[in-house]
């Protein structure tokens, strides 16, 4: 075990100006989020309906990538099971919503249930390191389809459940309303995360990631910090899952396959591990890359390519970004400024 520890905790820490906080003035998160909100609202009025739907999807992905980047980037815990946590949120929302027809209440229940699920997995995860942790979370991701077909009375197997929703207020088009819903959730989640990691909790997370022994000597409760990090991250995934259930008006295991969990990891690595801006880039890529590869597939005329090309494209982008900017897309601006300063 001891030889695994330092490797595992050192690997996901690209040394960039973004992650290691320097004595540099950063805008307060509230300000950034406020700007973000204005931009999103403006976009929803400019974009055509299908783009609004994609924007909404980006918002939903943003919730989960933000949570995951805090867990993996700042706390060094690798989770391959966030797709399953999203499924937990999605199914909880579907079941509650179909019973009580109250969306805010359904969201609350979805958050509660994923908190519980996150705590259980987190408790187990806090005892594991590196590949063992990855293995555990991988198992969680794989078990989703089996659970839904074993308890098909409740989850209705591969066909999944449809989600009964009240139509949005007459004045707003469906897609605009969806974009607002997803982005309000995303911005609240990201604001809370940003405030959380700025303070003591953020320092604890990093300390535990960098050196557990040193952190323990400094009086940090390692296990508690890790479990808390996992729970926080699970809640974000739960919110994202619930948003997906609302967006698709249905939930099915096919929406949360193992590849989704892997894509999420790839997205935050490409975006820039540990950076919330990186999480935003990751979320954008998760929507843009499949769309792009689909249109490329259509143009080449090979319809079989369409379904499979996205995987290749993601892999290639990951390789290219890691070669060109190991800190991810979010590190590019600071790399450029550093380059300019050095040349001066």
């Amino acid at each position: 075990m001891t030889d695994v520890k330092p490797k595992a905790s050192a690997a996901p820490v690209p040394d960039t100006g973004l992650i290691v906080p320097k004595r540099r003035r950063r805008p307060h998160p509230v300000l950034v989020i406020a700007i973000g909100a204005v931009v999103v609202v403006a976009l929803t009025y400019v974009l055509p309906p299908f783009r609004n739907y994609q924007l909404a999807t980006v918002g939903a992905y943003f919730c989960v990538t933000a949570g995951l980047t805090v867990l993996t980037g700042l706390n060094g815990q690798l989770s391959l099971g966030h797709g399953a946590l999203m499924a937990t949120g999605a199914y909880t929302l579907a079941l509650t919503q179909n019973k009580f027809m109250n969306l805010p209440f359904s969201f609350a229940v979805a958050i509660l249930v994923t908190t519980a699920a996150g705590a259980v997995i987190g408790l187990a995860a806090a005892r594991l390191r590196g590949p063992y942790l990855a293995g555990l979370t991988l198992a969680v991701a794989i078990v989703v389809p089996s659970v839904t077909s074993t308890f098909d009375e409740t989850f209705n197997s591969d066909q999944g459940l449809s989600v009964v929703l009240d139509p949005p207020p007459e004045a707003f088009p469906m897609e605009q309303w969806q974009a607002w819903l997803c982005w309000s959730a995303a911005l609240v989640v990201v604001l809370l995360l940003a405030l959380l990691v700025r303070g003591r909790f953020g320092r604890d997370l990093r300390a535990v990631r960098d050196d557990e022994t040193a952190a323990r000597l400094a009086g940090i409760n390692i296990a508690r910090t890790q479990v808390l990090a996992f729970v926080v991250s699970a809640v974000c995934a739960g919110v994202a899952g619930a948003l997906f259930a609302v967006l698709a008006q249905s939930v099915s295991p096919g929406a949360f396959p193992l590849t989704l969990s892997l894509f999420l990891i790839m997205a935050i690595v490409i975006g820039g591990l540990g950076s919330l801006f990186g999480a935003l880039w990751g979320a954008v890529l998760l929507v843009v890359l499949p769309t792009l590869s689909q249109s490329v597939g259509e143009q080449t005329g090979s319809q079989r390519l369409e379904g499979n090309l996205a995987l290749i494209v993601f892999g290639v982008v990951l390789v290219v970004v890691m070669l060109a900017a190991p800190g991810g897309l979010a590190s590019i601006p600071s790399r450029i400024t550093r380059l300019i300063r050095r040349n001066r």
Partner: protein
Amino acid sequence: MKRTATTVLAVVLLATAGCTNDGGGGGTGSANVPGVTDSSVIVGTHMPLTGPAAAGYSKIAPATKAYFDYVNKNGGVHGRKIEYKIKDDGYNPANTQTVVRELVLQDKVFAVLNGLGTPTHTGVLDFLKTNRVPDLFVASGSRSWNQADKYPGTFGFNPDYTVEGKILGTYVKENLAGKKACFLGQDDDFGRDSLAGIEKILGSVAAKESYVTSNPNVGPQMGALKAAGCEVVLLATVPGFTALSIGTAAKIAFKPQFVVSNVGADPTTVGKALGAGAPLMEGLVATNYLPLTTDEANPWIQLFKKVNAEHNGNAEFDNNTVYGMSVGYLFVQALQAAGKDLTRDKLTEAVKKNGFQGPGLVPLRFSATDHSGYGGAQLTKVVGGKAAWVGTPYTTDDKDAPVTAYQGQAATPPQNGVPAA
């Protein structure tokens, strides 16, 4: 702050870049009907071109498109060429959500035609209804498409699985009486509806098992059916899983009589999946409601083979090809009946009025209150590697009506192969 500004700017740029390729096919023709101009009409579909259900089914949409190309070459419908947009959803309901939104919101299709799959299509019914998009001839036999009050724009095509189950049950009752009959079905509406029909005729089956497409292993299920001493196994399976079931049974030396739902029984597709084990299909009983591919004398088969050669690159001619072209033929009939001033309401009205004479062996049931497709089927049996007809076509309903022989005469296609207005 600089970084924030850069990011915000980049997001805006990216989003606007995203907008630019949003052309859409807005209408200048019939009073701004989406997807309709004076010279074209855009129709879309979602199909499993990849994934667990792609075997066989991926050939349906290209066949439909080939028939449309044939019609377009002959002048189109009311001067309009049909443009068919095929989107791959991989038989994954989550993908179906995205691609159907893309078809409706971005490509601005006039109608969605022949979207395939029970689990996949169920999820988009509400979306299509909200956007008032005609949702014609869904490629599945679920009874969900027949909800005229709830989904006024949705119409089926296949005989529903309950009707088919009753016909399969009747075969077992008449020809395999006294044998222990068991059931293996997909764990969704497909399997459940089929079982309901079978049990209406046979009473409770001796053993029933289910599978999910995400787990390509039916070993436990076939083992359980063998252990239960089944002599007849009724399958409500997609083609890949029909082959899997037959192959798995052979592996454990379990040799029941297989009686298979039409959607999973195309001999070409199943035979290909079985590979060297294709002879295991011998004696397999199934149903069909469209002409058989091997029936060279049938005028519909002659027409479809010609279209296949001219517009489909002479793709392997199987039940899926016939199915796809039959859907195309019916849609052209509906477009003709809807008239020159095409609107979405006129199209659904035309479908409700029915009266379509096509390749089907039994009539379509469309009316103001009934949105289900074909009302029956005929049994087939695999003899010498090819399906052959057994007896006469049957019709029935999804409730308690008896299964009765249908005496009507099959229609013949018009001379030029394009239905007249």
